[in-house]
């Protein structure tokens, strides 16, 4: 019985790894196929001849590097600002009694479920009228709004767990209130803030609907939107290996973040939604 269930777990373990990583290995393999091979048609999983020419091409492509720059800039700025505002709000929700607390939480929840496409029309119209169309702020503002709910929920769950009495204890021991905040509360709150930042960054890095609707040139177009423009005239015969290469490049930051902070991400995802 024990042996059988252990074997089952191992089988499950292997299956999960294969299921999760196969498509990643697949685009990695595609990215090393020469363009000539994919143009003719290459149904093999691995390249027949390996090349790094695709990587050279993609890095030399100014549209792609510009989109990468836009993606980093927009995602980092929206993450920074959203987490800042969410920290204020989450602190208030976790620690203070005020009227409308539940309303704020419900609003956040409603916005988390909001169909983003519904806003494309009005935002397109508004942004063109006030000159935000095809600019960084034009994407940063809606990204902040849509990441705030997740950040607020995650952070307020974290803040609720912080032993705030320690702040007073430190003050009793002679610390000034600034020292108590700086030396006691900040280190306790930092992991939560950091987790919220990672989840927010993922959202902004991934976002596609607004990125494609509210931009028109590489001035503000992010990587997901730029990728969809690489497709060319025939959507059923796109430049496979180059797209795969670009995909691998934009997946690298994701993999790095996951490798470094996997524990935090799991904690953040589950604390926001389920009692943990």
């Amino acid at each position, binding site marked *: 019985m024990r042996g059988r269930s252990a074997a089952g777990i191992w089988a499950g373990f292997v299956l999960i790894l294969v299921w*999760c990583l196969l498509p990643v290995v697949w685009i990695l393999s595609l990215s090393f196929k020469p363009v000539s091979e994919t143009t003719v048609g290459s149904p093999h999983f691995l390249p027949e001849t390996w090349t790094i020419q695709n990587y050279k091409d993609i890095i030399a492509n100014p549209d792609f590097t510009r989109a990468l720059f836009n993606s980093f800039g927009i995602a980092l700025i929206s993450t920074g600002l959203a987490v800042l505002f969410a920290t*204020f709000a989450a602190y208030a929700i976790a620690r203070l009694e005020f009227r409308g607390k539940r309303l704020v939480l419900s609003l956040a929840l409603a916005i988390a479920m909001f169909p983003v496409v519904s806003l*494309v029309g009005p935002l397109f119209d508004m942004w063109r009228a006030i000159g935000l169309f095809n600019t960084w702020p034009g994407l940063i503002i809606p990204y*902040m709004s849509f990441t705030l709910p997740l950040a607020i929920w995650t952070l307020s769950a974290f803040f609720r767990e912080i032993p705030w009495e320690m702040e007073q204890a430190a003050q009793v021991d002679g610390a000034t209130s600034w020292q108590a905040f700086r030396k006691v509360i900040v280190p306790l709150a930092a992991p939560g803030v950091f987790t919220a930042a990672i989840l927010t960054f993922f959202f902004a890095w991934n976002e596609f609907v607004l990125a494609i609707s509210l931009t028109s040139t590489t001035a503000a177009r992010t990587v997901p939107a730029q990728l969809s423009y690489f497709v060319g005239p025939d959507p059923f015969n796109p430049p496979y290996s180059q797209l795969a290469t670009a995909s691998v490049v934009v997946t690298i930051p994701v993999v790095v973040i*996951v490798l470094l902070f996997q524990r935090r991400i799991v904690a953040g995802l589950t604390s926001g939604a389920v009692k943990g």
Partner: protein
Amino acid sequence: MTTTASTPTAAPTRRHTSDRATAENRLGLKLVAPAVALMLLVTAYPMLQALYLSLFRYRLTTPGEKRFVGLGNYVTALTDSLFWQDLFNTVVIMVVSVAVELVIGFAFAMVMHRIIVARGLMRTSILIPYGIITVVSAFAWQFAFSLNNGFINGWFQWLPWISPDTNWFGAHWPAMFAIIVSEIWKTTPFMALLLLAGLSQVSDDMLEAAQVDGATWWQRLYKVILPNMRAAIMVAVLFRALDAFRIFDNIFVMTKGAQGTESSSFLTYRQVIEQFQLGMGSALSVLLFLAVLLLAFLIVRLFRVDLAQARGEA
């Protein structure tokens, strides 16, 4: 404050606490104000704008011809078979992907819950689909299913309905299948992690007691594990269903809506951005918003999801 005269000693303390409460209330409101303002600025205001625009025949290419049509746009949309076809596609994608994810996600959660070694490796690999850009997932699967460059046909040609020249994107249902696979691959980790959190709340004592009483594995699953994870399952279903209902990225990349694979979100996008039909697009936006609202209401009502309870706030 009439009591001040009769009980002069009690008044200051009472006023003190009430001042304190007022101050706390004020501080709380100040702290949440920026976040609330931002959330409303980008959602509530544009939504009202959409409500207004939806009453007009308004095309951006000919703004001079903006004309009030009342509920005309809604009538046009609701009587058009394309609207219903796209809504049907959206619901099919939502129901199938959430159902499959629930099963796979639960299996993942069971394995992750039990495994003792290589937890880090497991977490890392499960988080990669979660973190990966949806557009990238769509490309990966589009290429995998591709007729000329994909490996799916080669690997699975032993199945009776797959041959080396199966064209997945040449017909409605195969294309829908490919879209759903990409959707499931990308979002199962989220489901699995929420279920894992629920699973870790099921007490081991209860499971052992059931085992001692002679319950089989299935009985323990159905009678002990699942009922105790109900809140977690419902929250996961609610979040994922509403998320899947908004499907856009996968369809945009994989088929561009060809072979009748358009979703409601894609239809709305196409009206606004490609055809500049702001009036009609706004009407579709409002309908989509109402559909999401209705769906959320139905799920919460039908399954009696209590989010506050699930988060331990009650």
